[in-house]
């Protein structure tokens, strides 16, 4: 072993599991034959001794007993906070779920009250176009039509044009039941549904019956004659 190797091994001579510890005998033998390394070894061992004394002097050192109390208190507070937070979350979730259930219940109740009186026969695609000769009869006073729309009399008994399937009507829904709803629509709305509005006179608002399927989608429309509404 030379001096460089000795210096490398020096700090690990007493540390089991290290290369320095494994070459301890060689290092000590070298120190016996080298004055400088012998002095270095002496200094290093003295430093070890001083470090051990410092270590022993502090071996019992620890934080004050008061700190454990303080930390325990903090732990309890933190845990209570966490639990409180969890409970608040659970309450909020329950409240939201209850609200959703109530809304769903009201919706079902409302819908069940609006179920159709009977089956409606609609021929969606093949239905003939409205009789344009009768459309002129539909021009009337808007106020009268609104009154008519809210009239509770049976809609089935009104005579009117045939139902015309709406462009986006679902074929499978035809004839499967639904409701007829009388509404008053503006000329623009009727035009957007493909109804001829040029022959309806000057009235801005026109009464119509709309077939609504069970899922609430409008399926067909017909115009209501003025005389039917007047009755």
């Amino acid at each position, binding site marked *: 072993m030379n001096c460089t190797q000795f210096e490398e091994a020096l700090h690990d001579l007493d540390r089991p599991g290290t290369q320095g510890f494994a070459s301890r005998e060689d290092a000590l033998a070298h120190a016996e034959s080298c004055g400088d390394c012998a002095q270095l070894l002496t200094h290093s061992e003295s430093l070890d*001794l001083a470090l051990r*004394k410092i270590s022993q002097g502090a071996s019992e050192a620890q934080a004050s007993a008061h*700190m454990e109390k303080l930390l325990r208190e903090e732990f309890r507070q933190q845990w209570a906070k966490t639990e409180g937070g969890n409970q608040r979350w659970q309450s909020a979730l329950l409240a939201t779920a209850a609200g959703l259930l109530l809304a769903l219940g009201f919706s079902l109740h409302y819908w069940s009250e609006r179920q159709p009186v009977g089956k409606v026969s609609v021929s969606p695609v093949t239905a003939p176009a409205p009789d344009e000769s009768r459309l002129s009869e539909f021009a009337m006073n808007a106020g009268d039509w609104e009154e008519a729309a809210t009239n509770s009399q049976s809609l089935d008994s009104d005579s009117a044009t045939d139902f015309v399937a709406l462009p986006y009507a679902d074929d499978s829904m035809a004839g499967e039941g639904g409701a007829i709803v009388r509404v008053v629509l503006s000329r623009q709305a009727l035009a957007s549904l493909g109804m001829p509005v040029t022959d309806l006179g000057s009235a801005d608002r026109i009464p119509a019956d709309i077939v609504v399927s069970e899922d609430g989608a409008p399926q067909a429309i017909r115009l209501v004659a003025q005389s039917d509404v007047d009755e």
Partner: protein
Amino acid sequence: MTDDRLLERMLAGDEEAFADLYRRKHPAIYRFALHMSGNAAMAEDVTQEVFMALIREPKRFDPQRGTLSAFLFGIARNHLRKRWEQDKRLLPMAPDMEEDDFAPAASSNGSGHKPMLTFVDELESLDTIGLVRRTISTLPEGYREVVVLCELEEMSYEEAAAALGCPVGTVRSRLHRGRAILLEKLRDAHEARSVSAVANRRGGE
């Protein structure tokens, strides 16, 4: 019971598990902070902060990244650095520190003169323990950490590496360098005192 099991129970709200964990881990953390800072009050504060962090943010500990001890030592190191930044006065062995701070306690030979001790005698003298301790605190932080962990806490290189989150080779090289610096500084201090003692003796004759 393992640290992981105690931590698991602590996370489930078991206060006793936390207390067990605290009793098991806090002495090493406290001593590390004490040796690193040389200040008991600071060591107490740092220890408290470490365990407060464990209470408040236990999920920060990731077993995949290291042991619980390493995690706690990491927090302690961060707090020590913060404290040193906040209060530069507590920086150990600042350049303007008085030379008297290095001096060992007065000898009891009644002459008022310091005896002519050899370097080795001085190191072995109980009076010089304070000097060694202070000299350790002058080491650069990286070296000081490994000296504290490997020499004063008697950790293996592997344990120190885990605590510091660095490779074993780094711990080894830092320790060797730290010890070399330590010996050099102590030798310098010894020489300075020898010169001073000779001057005092001549002045007294």
